[in-house]
């Protein structure tokens, strides 16, 4: 048996509300971490997973306090240690890799100094040895030219590089236990896959135990030996990684795995109802009762204990888990999406270029260069009535930029946007007439920002109704109620403010507001990315239902290829503001593909330990598109020669109607590097 290095016993952490009630963030948590293993802690926001990870370092955030229990590291309780004792453990025995390294690195200190600081504290090396060690560490995390990186400030590095620096800093003290708090969240897909790969390598290389905290089952599946599932401050399931992901016996995990879209499956996954209860909400029964499909009367008033099942090596907190044990692996039932795409084109982008470059004072004085290398260039897409077309790509691919200029929020530099085959839309919002404004509506990524916090739901939804249709009084109210029902929210939501709604409910209000205008086209900008995993599928299903009811066309922007696979009829892949590939989704997700599509698909993390990401290209961050040649030349591993650097590749049409823009002949592209 492996030696236990971290032992959490009956830990409860909470805070006192303004009314003086004790509100629990962690409820009686017991678990342990063994030497050399990687444990994944998975849960939605608010499930207490980060609080638990921090407690394992003896750190409780300002405002929270320990109510009971202990966190023992090598048999001494971290939560009762004084700061001097903790300083000797933190960084040396237990180290943390934070979520957003960009904010976790001190802005005024150079990278080299920040690593050196850890070395000074936790090793006996002299100055010269430490300098060597810094280079060695930066090398180990695969950063290019460590010596120059050491002299830089954090803000001069890309997100992926910052994350690697954080890893190097954590490794400086040669810790026995590494805590990783969402270390890849917020990074681009390819960068995320690379960082994860590095972490796996380090775990193997150094034999360090790891605790990997994430909301992303895909990332957890790739790294962990054992998984702890948290829900509403409690551990609901804990066991070996493979059995949890393949045969989850807790209704929550079961539902969650069914609701996550997969790359291999087109169509919408089943959704889970409701959302996680807020901390402090009072319930005598099981915290998952309201959302559970397997619940019995017993669950309503009794909370199950965490029960250890010897044969499965699994702990579970559920009365009815036996009902799930008979099921085989999670069979994902997907609802095929009905494409009501018609042949009629509703929106055409021809030769659209968009430039962010401002004519700065300096430019005006010295050299009046017009931007010959715009952010987005030569976009030609025909969007058919009733279809869902997805624009995918990493940050900087120009997908949101294109969306903004369709909405008229960003003026195009060149090119024409045509509506309904013959009506040219003015590029500037102010020149569009009310009808031209009405036909295109937007749904944003983050409903917290897209709903005015000082307006009630009623006021929010009434705005387009008043503006476009001049509705008033009873009729206005009737329409609002109708719309609320359409998005599965009751009439009583009318008087609520956004802060009183959960993330999923807010996004439904935003959807209702968009549909209030009776638009022909809805632009969806990463509409599910800010939502919890368990809520995503419900919103996707709602969008699909509304689309079928109203015959709306969606332009769907996302970085998540699995979500795109689930909902879209057609996909356009963008890199650096240039199109790489456009075609029906089923073809884009198959070979032949553009080399960039290949990279993207390879990097997707699926919640299945048997599907490993395939890393093709380096995760370099390019600041600007190349001036000539193929936009992907800087990262492409299949460059055929100078032609890629000098000539813009031609469009090649596959038999199934997929267009790929590459110099490599289709036959060659068919022989994919990764299969």
């Amino acid at each position, binding site marked *: 048996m492996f030696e236990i290095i971290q032992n959490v016993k009956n830990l409860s952490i909470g805070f006192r509300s303004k009314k003086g009630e004790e509100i629990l963030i962690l409820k009686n948590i017991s678990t342990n971490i063994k030497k050399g293993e990687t444990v994944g802690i998975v849960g939605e926001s608010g499930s207490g997973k980060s609080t638990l990870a921090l407690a394992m370092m003896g*750190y409780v955030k300002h405002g929270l306090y320990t109510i009971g229990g202990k966190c023992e590291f090598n048999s001494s309780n971290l939560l009762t240690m004084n700061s001097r004792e903790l300083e000797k453990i933190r960084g*040396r025995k237990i180290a943390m890799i934070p979520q957003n390294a960009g904010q976790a690195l*001190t802005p005024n200190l150079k990278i080299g100094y920040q690593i050196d600081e850890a070395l000074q504290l936790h090793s006996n090396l002299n100055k010269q040895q430490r300098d060597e060690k810094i280079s060695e560490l930066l090398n180990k995390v695969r950063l290019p030219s460590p010596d120059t990186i050491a002299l830089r400030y954090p803000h001069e590095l890309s997100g992926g590089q910052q994350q690697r620096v954080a890893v190097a800093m954590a490794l400086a003290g040669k810790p026995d236990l590494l805590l990783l708090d969402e270390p890849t969240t917020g990074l681009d897909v390819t960068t995320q896959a690379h960082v994860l790969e590095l972490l796996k390598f380090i775990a193997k290389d150094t034999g360090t135990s790891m605790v990997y905290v994430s909301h992303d089952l895909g990332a957890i599946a790739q790294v962990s030996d054992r998984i702890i599932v948290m829900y509403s401050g409690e551990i609901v399931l804990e066991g070996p990684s493979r059995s949890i992901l393949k045969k989850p016996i807790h209704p929550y995990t079961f539902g969650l795995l069914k609701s996550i879209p997969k790359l291999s499956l087109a169509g919408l996954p089943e959704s889970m109802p409701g959302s996680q209860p807020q901390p402090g909400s009072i319930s005598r029964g099981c915290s998952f009762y309201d959302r559970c499909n397997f619940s019995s009367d017993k669950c309503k008033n009794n909370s199950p204990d965490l029960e250890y099942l010897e044969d499965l090596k699994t702990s579970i907190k559920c009365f009815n888990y036996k009902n799930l044990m008979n099921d085989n692996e999670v069979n994902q039932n997907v609802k095929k999406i009905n494409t009501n795409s018609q042949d009629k084109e509703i929106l055409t982008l021809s030769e659209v270029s968009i430039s962010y470059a401002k004519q700065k004072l300096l430019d005006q004085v010295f050299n009046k260069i017009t931007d010959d290398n715009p952010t987005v260039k030569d976009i030609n897409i025909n969007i058919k009535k009733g279809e869902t077309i997805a624009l995918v790509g990493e940050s900087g691919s120009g997908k949101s930029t294109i969306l903004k200029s369709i909405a008229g929020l960003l003026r195009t530099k060149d090119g024409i946007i045509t509506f309904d085959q013959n009506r040219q839309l003015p590029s500037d919002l102010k020149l569009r007439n009310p009808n031209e404004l009405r036909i295109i509506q937007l749904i944003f990524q983050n409903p917290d920002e897209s709903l005015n916090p000082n307006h009630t739901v009623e006021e929010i939804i009434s705005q387009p109704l008043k503006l476009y249709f001049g509705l008033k009084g009873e009729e206005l109210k009737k329409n609002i109620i109708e719309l609320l029902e359409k998005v599965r929210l009751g009439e009583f939501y009318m008087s609520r403010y956004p802060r009183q709604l959960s993330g999923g409910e807010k996004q439904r209000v935003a959807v209702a507001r968009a549909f209030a205008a009776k638009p022909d086209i809805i632009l969806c900008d990463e509409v599910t990315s800010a939502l919890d995993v368990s809520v995503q599928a419900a919103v996707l299903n709602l969008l699909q239902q509304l689309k079928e009811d109203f015959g709306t066309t969606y332009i769907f922007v996302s970085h998540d290829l699995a979500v795109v696979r689930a909902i879209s009829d057609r996909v356009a892949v963008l890199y650096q503001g240039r199109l790489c590939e456009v075609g029906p989704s089923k073809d884009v997700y198959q070979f032949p593909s553009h080399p960039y599509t290949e990279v993207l698909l390879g990097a997707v993390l699926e919640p299945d330990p048997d599907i490993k990401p395939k890393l093709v290209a380096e995760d370099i961050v390019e600041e600007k598109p190349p001036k000539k040649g193929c936009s992907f030349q800087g990262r492409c591993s299949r460059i055929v020669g100078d032609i890629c650097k000098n000539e813009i590749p031609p469009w090649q049409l596959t038999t199934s109607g997929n267009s790929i823009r590459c110099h490599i002949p289709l036959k060659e592209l068919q022989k994919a590097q990764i299969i």
Partner: protein
Amino acid sequence: MLFLIIKRILLGLITLFIVSLITFVGTEILPGDACTTYLERQAFGEQLEACYNRLGLNVPAYERYVSWALNAIQGDFGYSLSGEMPIKDVLGPKIKNSLVLASAAILIGIPIALILGIVTALWRDRLPDVAISTVTIFAMTIPEFISATLLILIVAIWLEWLPGIVIVPTDVTFFELLPNIILPVIAIAMIMTAHMARMVRSSVIQVMASDYVQMAILKGVPYWKMVFKHVLPNALLPAINVVALTIAWLLGGVVVTEVVFNYPGLGRLVIESISNRDLPVVQALALILASIYVSINLLADLMTLMLNPRLKTLQIRK
């Protein structure tokens, strides 16, 4: 980087230009002019004509502005109405005395404010914070003339420790001035110090709550090392600009305090020249005080540019 510096300097100059226009136009559009005001009842006929000629008021306003502004740039503000002395000579020693007062207040105030601000932030919501914060609220709100009056009443009249009223000629040496300026400096520095201390406190608290400070703690960095290396440089950077604004605001307090203590600085001159409607002096004062304000802010901007790694690196790599 260089571009940014030049831009800031240009913006400062533009501000000064607008100030000069405002003061010139402001004094111009008011009823009556310098001569009618100055001569009062005798403002007619030859005397008025002579006055106009002497002050050059008989040429169009824009010409007068140009010549006034050009001279002002060279430090020549013309003649005062009452004293018939060059304004330059009237102002010179008084500016020097006021600067002594203001700089003493700044030199004492800033370090105290820093210490109080940091202490209150680090001991947030505990006794040192509650005590100091209560005192700073009082110090911040009491007008200078009240604290000055109370200081005189208590320290000078009841305790008889220090002179209450400054009775020295304008051109005394620094050391003769020293015992006289202690009370005025305290009165001036109080409000400013309290303001800055509160500002520093909130800035430090903000940084203490940041991800990178949490990271430093989790890295095992000892407390005081964390405070000095990770917290303070980042907390004090944004404070520079606010400190500059506070210092500029202090100029008003200097005027009032100087009047209370009868101090031979700009304060009394301001009051006198305005009571006597000595417009050329008022214009000169406005321009000089505005220049001080603009230069302090410029200095703060440049300091921020120098210290902020985000801006500093612009120069290296672009």
